[in-house]
Structures are given as C-alpha cells and as structure tokens.
C-alpha cells in the first residue's frame, strides 16, 4: 500500500511541474495551436489520473487477496462492479449472512427429473455392501460373516486387515445370501436378503455432550458409521486417530438430475441436527454448512435453522453444490490439513444412531433419466439392488444404468447394487452409433458449452444426452474451457499435465490437494480433447497419498 501512496504523490507532482514548465514557454502566435496543446495536456492529465486510479485499485485488490479479505465476496474496488449493478438482488432470506456468488460453472439440463414425491411401492429385496466402494481398503477384507449368517442392521460384515477397528456394518437385517468375488478373488459384494421387518442391533449411544472424544470415536468405529465420513484430501476413510481441522457439509446438490435434498430431509430434521452436534465434538475447528442461495425461496428450515454450525451461502451453477468447491471458498485445504466431509443423508444416519440408538441407513434415492417411464423418488436403504429399483420402469433395452449422476457415477449392470455414497440412479441411452458428418451438422441438439451449437436459441431446453463421446481423444489444447467451468483459483490444465509428468512439487503447487474427482468432472464433460480428467486426477491423488 505504501507504493501506491508514493505513486499517487509523485505522478501528479510531475504533471504539475510539466504544466508550469509549459506555461513559462512563450506563447505561440496562432491561437489554434494553443488549443491543440491545451487539449493534449488535458488528455494526458486524464490518462495519468486514470493510470493512478487503476494502479492503486489493483494494488488494493492484491492486498485484499493477500489478506484473504476478498473471500467474503466484498468489492474492494473504487467503482461498483458490473455484476453488482446488473446482478439479480440478494435474496431477502439471506439477511446479511455471507454469500458466495460463483460465476463459473455450467448446468447440464437433462430430461427425466424426478418429481418431489416418493413412490412407496418400489422396494428392494436385496442389498449389498461393496469393499471396492471404500478407498484405501485392501481388496480382500477380513470377513466377519459367511453365507447363510443372519445379521441385524449394524452388525459388522467385514473389516480391513490393516485397520481392524473400523467396522463395515450391514445396512439392513437379513440373511447373507452371497459373497460375490471378482478378479483375483477380490470380494466384490456381500449380498443381504433383507427381512420384511427390519431388526436393529441395539446400541447404547454415549451422550455427545458429556463423553470424551475418544469414547465417541470408539462408538462410531464400532457402530459402522465411521466409513461414512470421508477425509479430504484424497477422499479416503479417515484413520481412527485423525482429528479434522474442520468438517464441511453441502446441503444441496447441483449435479445433473440430482435429488433435491430439501425434499430428502423432510421429517428427518431432528436426526440431522443431532448428527451435526456429534460432528461438532469430533473436530477441533468448526462444522461448516454450505447452503443453497439460488432460489427465490429459502431452502428447508432443517438447514437454515441448524444450530452449532457456521453457515455459508452459495449461488451459481454446478459445481457450486460440490463440497470441494465450498471448502475452497470458505477455508481452503493447505498442505498438512485434513478436513472431513459428509453427505446429508449420512449425517442423518449418524444422528439416528444417537436419537434412536439404531443404525438406520434409510436413503431417499432419486431414480432419474430420460430412459425411464416415470422418474421418481424411492425410499430404500443403502446399497439397494438396481433391478428392483428399476423394475418395469425402463423404456428400452439399450440403456446405460448409472449409480450416481452422469458426471461422476459408475456404470453398472442391471443386477448390480447402488454404491455406498450414491443417492441417485440415472438411466441414459447408450450412444454407440455412427453419425454422418457429426462434427459439422449434428442430427440432434445436445448439451454443450460451445457457441458453435445454436443452443442459445432455445434457453431452458432439456436434452436427451447419450453416452457417445461425440469425437475422438486428442492431445490437450488450450481452449480455456476448464477454467470456464471450475469456480476455483487454479489452473486445471497445467495440473493435469503436471500429473501426467509425475511432477510432485508442481502438482502440489497447482492445488491438487483441494480437488476431488467430482470437482473436475464438469471440465471432463466440456473437454474438447475428450481427455479422461477424473482418471488422471485420481492417478495424481494416489501418487500424492503414497508420498505423504
């Protein structure tokens, strides 16, 4: 700030001297040229003033960034910014709470959104827990049950040999009907045939207000709720001795066709609040809640009235609802930091453990996609069977069933099970067709960021996307698309190249620790070169976690 002060003083002084010097020269005969000289002087004066204003304004912005004061979204400029003048007004329900308006991002609008109503008829008969869903766990975990065992919801099914204290618990009660193995005898899924009336393992939950953190952790480990916590960076299950700097929860999902979490938490507010209370005991820092400020109406009162947490509001297109983006804006992950993240329904499961003393993995799942007869919400449990959820609802045979959303989900066979974290099933068309001159004159409109498609003529249109790649894989080209859809202060393309080159210092410097696959997924969607960015990022994260 000193520098700008000096510039502010010195430059006008120079100008003044120049003016005086000029005034002392004898006046030319013609008055025309006099006017010309005065005009020039006036223009140069204006330019100098403009430069001073610009320099000092930029210095101010740099200083604000250095101090981190600009994170609040406040304007440190002398002038109002364009978005302040023309942006839609802050919603009234914010009432002065911190808001982040993210301008970068993209909403992929797809057909097949589920209406806010639960179809109670759809039930899944079998459920499964898949060791492959958990990162860092050995592919052949130590089984604690065998085929034919009877389990209650909450009974441990298996544990990792390196961390035996973390139990992976049965989501429902019933009989173990199969332990399916994959390549090299890795355990793919442990299938449970569910009871009609759920039986729960009895828990005597400690009072989070009175017990110590150690007792609480021991209880969570034993009850099977621990693996629901994910630790950033690297998106792994935390070790029992890890203490998080902060815990972050995003209360809205902006992914294509994602379930409306306001609808999902209806009637489960008490359990959610209890879950937040417990999380507050687990961290040395704070529990942060990312709230949705996109709509005209406030989100569910369960979120807005949540107590004991720090609330930040976010507005913008996808990926504004991703917890990684929110962490980046609220309090970024630096080297050595460990933060925990949890989904809303996982927090509810955690809370139910304390309010009702049982391991209740009820999940409201959105069954969505253009290839369904009726997109709908269903109430089921964790790891439900996909063929049961989709029975009689598929339009065609040639479809792709995805556990999760179209950006980050996993391609599943129809007989497979919903992944551990997923609260959404998406069904889209397989796109294995040739398209004549598809690169020049495509046969149908498709979701795209590119202005070479006339999509801007049909705002609000929804698309039937399929799994065609619409082009071949190419080398990275500097198009600026990644930066356009990633609301973070980092250079995704440079990062990807650093990962491919295996350069650790560069990877860390370019912010790999802040990223998770879901954050980069939209970049992968937009990529002209059809590069597998999520795959590359995971390679990089694995390299980094092996090093640390």
């Amino acid at each position, binding site marked *: 700030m000193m520098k700008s002060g000096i510039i502010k003083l010195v430059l006008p002084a120079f100008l003044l001297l120049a003016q005086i010097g000029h005034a002392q020269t004898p006046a030319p005969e013609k008055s025309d040229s006099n006017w010309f000289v005065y005009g020039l002087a006036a223009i140069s004066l204006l330019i100098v003033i403009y430069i001073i204003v610009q320099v000092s304004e930029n210095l101010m912005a740099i200083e604000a960034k250095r101090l981190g004061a600009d994170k609040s979204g406040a304007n440190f400029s002398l002038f109002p910014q364009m978005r302040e003048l023309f942006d839609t007004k802050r919603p009234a329900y914010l009432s002065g709470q911190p808001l982040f308006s993210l301008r970068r991002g993209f909403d992929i609008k797809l057909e097949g959104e589920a209406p806010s109503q639960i179809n109670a008829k759809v039930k899944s008969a079998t459920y499964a827990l898949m060791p492959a869903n958990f990162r860092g766990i050995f592919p052949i975990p130590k089984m604690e049950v065998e085929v034919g065992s009877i389990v209650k919801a909450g009974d441990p099914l298996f544990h990792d040999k390196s961390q035996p204290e973390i139990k992976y618990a049965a989501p429902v009660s019933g009989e173990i009907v199969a332990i399916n193995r994959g390549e090299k005898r890795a355990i793919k899924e442990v299938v449970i045939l569910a009871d009609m009336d759920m039986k729960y393992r009895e828990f005597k939950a400690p009072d989070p207000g009175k017990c110590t953190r150690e007792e609480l952790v021991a209880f969570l480990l034993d009850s099977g709720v621990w693996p629901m916590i994910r630790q950033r960076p690297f998106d792994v299950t935390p070790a029992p001795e890890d203490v998080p700097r902060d815990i972050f929860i995003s209360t809205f999902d902006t992914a294509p066709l994602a379930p409306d979490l306001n609808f999902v938490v209806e009637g489960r507010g008490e359990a959610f609040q209890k879950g937040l209370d417990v999380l507050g005991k687990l961290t040395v820092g704070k529990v942060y809640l990312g709230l949705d400020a996109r709509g005209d109406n406030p989100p569910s009162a369960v979120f807005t009235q949540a107590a004991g947490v720090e609330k930040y509001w976010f507005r913008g297109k996808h990926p504004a609802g991703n917890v990684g983006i929110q962490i980046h804006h609220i309090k970024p992950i630096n080297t050595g930091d460990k933060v925990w993240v949890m989904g809303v329904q996982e927090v509810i499961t955690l809370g139910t453990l304390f309010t009702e003393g049982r391991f209740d993995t009820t999940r409201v799942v959105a069954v969505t996609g253009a290839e369904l007869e009726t997109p709908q919400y269903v109430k089921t449990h964790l790891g439900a069977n996909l063929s049961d959820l989709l029975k009689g609802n598929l339009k065609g045979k040639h479809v792709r069933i995805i556990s999760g959303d179209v950006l980050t989900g996993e391609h599943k066979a129809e007989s497979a099970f919903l992944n551990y974290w997923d609260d959404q099933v998406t069904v889209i068309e397989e796109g*294995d067709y*040739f398209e004549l001159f598809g690169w020049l004159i495509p046969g149908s409109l498709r979701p795209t960021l590119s202005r070479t498609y006339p999509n801007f003529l049909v705002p609000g249109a929804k698309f039937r996307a399929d799994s065609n790649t619409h082009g071949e894989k190419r*080398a990275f080209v500097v198009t600026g698309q990644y930066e356009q859809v990633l609301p973070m202060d980092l250079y995704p393309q440079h990062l990807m190249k650093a990962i491919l080159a295996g350069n650790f210092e560069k990877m860390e410097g370019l912010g790999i620790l802040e990223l998770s696959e879901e954050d980069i997924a939209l970049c992968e969607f937009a990529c002209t070169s059809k590069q597998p960015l999520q795959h590359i990022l995971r390679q990089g994260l694995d390299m980094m976690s092996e090093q640390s």
Partner: protein
Amino acid sequence: MHTAYDAFFTFAFTPKTVTTDGVHIRDGIDLKRTMVYVVLALQLCYLFGTYNIGYQHFDAIGLYPGLLDGLHLKLVYGLIKILPIFIVTHVVGLGIEFYYASRKGHGVEEGFLVTGALIPLLMPPDIPMWILAFSVAFAVIIGKEAFGGTGMNIVNIALLARVFVFFAYPTYIAGTRYGFPVLKK
C-alpha cells in the same frame, strides 16, 4: 495405411465410441468441430485477400482503377494466385501429419486445418512454390512434430512458416524482382 483410412472415415462419420469410466456424457464439441469453425471464421479474410491480390495486380498494370470495376476478373486473378498456395500448403503439411500420425500410431490431429488455412493468408502471393513447401515442412516438423504434435508446440506453426521465409529467403519476398513503382520513377 490404417491411419489414413481412419482419418477419412472419421471425417465422414463421428465414431461410435462410448464413454467408459469418468463422465458418462460428453459435450458435443470436439477438436474437429473447433478447428473447422476457426477455418469457417477465416473465410471472410480469404474473400478480401483474394480480391486484394487481384486489385493490386490490375492497379499495377493500370486497368480497372475503381474498387468494384472488373470485380470478377480481380477475384479470378486472386484465385489463380491463392489456390496453388492453398493446395501446396495442404499437400505438404497434411502429408507430414499423416506420416507422423502413422509412425506414432495415433489419429491424425486436426490442428493442421487451422495452420493450413492461416499460411496462405500470411504468405506473399507470388512466393515460389518450392519455398512455400520448404517453409511449411520446416514449420510442421521443427515447430510441431519435434515437440510432440498438436497441443505440445511452443510456437505458432503458421507464424513460424512465415518467419522461416522471412529469414531464409528475404530476397525472394522483399521486392528485388518487382520493386516499388514509385522508386522506379
């Protein structure tokens, strides 16, 4: 051979490849479309460039002084000049691209479409064809393929070709053969 077949096939049809892991849907844009749209955007420059070559020619010999006089003749003359440049650029450049693509076993990348459209716009219209072929080959091999192909180059290939001509053959492009009419007087 397969590379060449593949290049022509994917020119006609978008392939039926589907996404595997990662995202399940992809943006409609691909490198072909990106590059072709740049070339389409350059067509206005081509139109004016073609006209300008003809205009300068007829201006030098003192015919059709008005801007629009003999418009068709000016355009035809411009085309006679620019088409050979366009063709030689593409034959040489794409030939090298195909060769390297088959050698390295990847698809023919579309980056040369834009380079090939820019070079005729940058070159002097009366450049000898052998110099043109030389400069294009130099630019593509040293400027791009030596660094690993499309997306890896550190200099602009079209500009490198122009720079090569400028430094290697200054006498051919700087007017010893024609000179300025004003200076002749």
